[in-house]
């Protein structure tokens, strides 16, 4: 009988494949996102920002940085698993993974971790671009890291779920275009709660992404607009629930095995 192979090489291989795939198509996965961010900085940070006095004690440029950072963190961690799974299901090369001796938990984590890494990569890119214009120093490192880990984890799970569910390219993008992007803009990327009123204020207050941006903003520049720890607890709960669902679906082979 065949001898047992290392448990972790298959996992590591899949993780590496998932992460490296996105460097193979940078015109899809890296440059457009970073160029968009550059324009936000140029237009909102520099051109318009110079006419706005400080917001919550910091320059407007610095104020919008965490929100844009979160946007790319989400975009990266969501797009990596969703796009990859969707393509692999449609090309059929997902069978490579299904035939391999990879445990279902490793399967799930490899996709999540690779997504998180892509999110971090794009997030870091955002900060580096910002540093071309302003000084960025981190206010509360650990809060920032924990928030980033949880946010990217949550959206990597979403990415897997949509990547498994979607039957068309359109469906793949529904979630990001109709849920994530609007909620990010209504999550206080460009404003604080007291700058808005009425419907926008209400949506913002019940918007989970608002609390994510809020936490990251606190970690990055020390400015907060809501409770940091409440946000953390909420994120941990969401992350746990999403992980369980994702894992169960992969174990069942939902839209993977016929």
């Amino acid at each position, binding site marked *: 009988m065949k001898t047992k192979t290392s448990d972790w090489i*298959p996992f590591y291989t899949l993780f590496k494949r998932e992460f490296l795939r996105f460097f193979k198509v940078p015109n899809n996965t890296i440059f457009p996102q970073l160029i968009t961010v550059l324009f936000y900085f140029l237009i909102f940070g520099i051109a318009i920002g110079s006419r706005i006095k400080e917001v919550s004690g910091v320059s407007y440029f610095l104020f919008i940085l965490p929100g844009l950072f979160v946007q790319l963190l989400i975009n990266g961690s969501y797009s990596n698993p969703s796009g990859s799974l969707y*393509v692999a299901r449609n090309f059929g*090369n997902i*069978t*490579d993974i*299904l035939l391999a*001796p*990879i445990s279902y938990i490793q399967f799930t984590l490899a996709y999540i971790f690779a997504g998180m890494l892509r999110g971090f990569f794009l997030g870091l890119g955002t900060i580096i671009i910002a540093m071309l214009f302003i000084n960025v120093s981190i206010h509360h490192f650990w809060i920032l890291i924990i928030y980033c880990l949880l946010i990217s984890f949550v959206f990597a799970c979403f990415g897997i779920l949509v990547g498994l569910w979607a039957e068309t390219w359109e469906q793949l993008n529904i979630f990001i275009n109709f849920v994530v992007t609007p909620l990010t803009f209504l999550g206080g990327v460009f404003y604080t709660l007291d700058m808005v009123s009425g419907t926008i204020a209400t949506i913002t207050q019940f918007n989970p992404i608002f609390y994510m941006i809020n936490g990251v903003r606190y970690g990055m520049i020390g400015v907060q607009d809501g409770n940091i720890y409440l946000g953390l607890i909420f994120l941990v709960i969401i992350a746990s629930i999403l992980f369980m669902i994702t894992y169960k679906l992969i174990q069942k082979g939902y839209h993977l*095995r016929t």
Partner: protein
Amino acid sequence: MNSIEIQGLVKKFTIKKKKEEVFAVNNISFNIKKGEIFGFLGPNGAGKTTTINCITQLSNKTSGKILVNGHDVEKQYREARNQIGLSPQDLTFDPYFTILEILVYQGGYFGMLKKQAQKRAEKLLKQFELWEKRKSRIKQLSGGMKRKLSIIKAMMHKPEILILDEPTAALDVDSRYELWEFIKKLNEQGITIILTTHYIEEAEKLADRIAIINKGKIIKLEEKEKIIEDLSQNKITIYLKEDKKLPKEFNQLNYDYKDKKIIIQTPKKDQNKNLRLALKILEEQKIEIENFSVDQDNLENIFRRLIKNENQN
């Protein structure tokens, strides 16, 4: 010792829109012995690929039990998958990577270190004359090259069981012969091989045992020689010197008579008896013969008769 044990396997597909149920595999049980070449034959849509998918877990079976080298394919899926290399009927490759990268990843998925995988890939690519293409993309390979690559991929982790779902489809004549030699050589090294094919000749050349599946049911499973021995309908042709009416004694034979030519269909085991009988009758009636010949039946004809019979019942 069995490599694969299948008990009461059922695979039902439900087509939601039409509320239709298809029993692609309908309660089959059989074992595949360690070290044999197992030919799995059947017409299109018979359930061959579905059975293979249940073994490799590309499909979730509806019910039944499958053991691979003693490991349950669901409860001990990692151990079970480690034993098997599959070259599937529908070829699929990772679109983002080169041939060599694909193989190194494949090795990695099965726990091989990068160095190990590279060495193994080099050896196999050279053996299949694809080494020159190692930096190519999948799109740049011909159909037959893709087929070979798929077999190399299945072989990367040195599986104990190799499943080849129509491996010679799209191969040119030389490549086909080479693949047959390769399969035989692997088998001599103790690797169990499961082979589906529509070239019955291929199964006749390679397989130790043959299973014939039709509409989700196994209708025959036997040693190849025994199937041929038992089910062969050989053809005896006797040429007469002159056109004469045949005596009624001939009616005990299954024959056809036209243009001085008698064609007798006979089960292989009764072939000699029937030939002697025919010659004896002719001699008694003083009917002179010019010549005679016996044509051996082949697996292809047997296969076709079996399926035809089965579909009439």
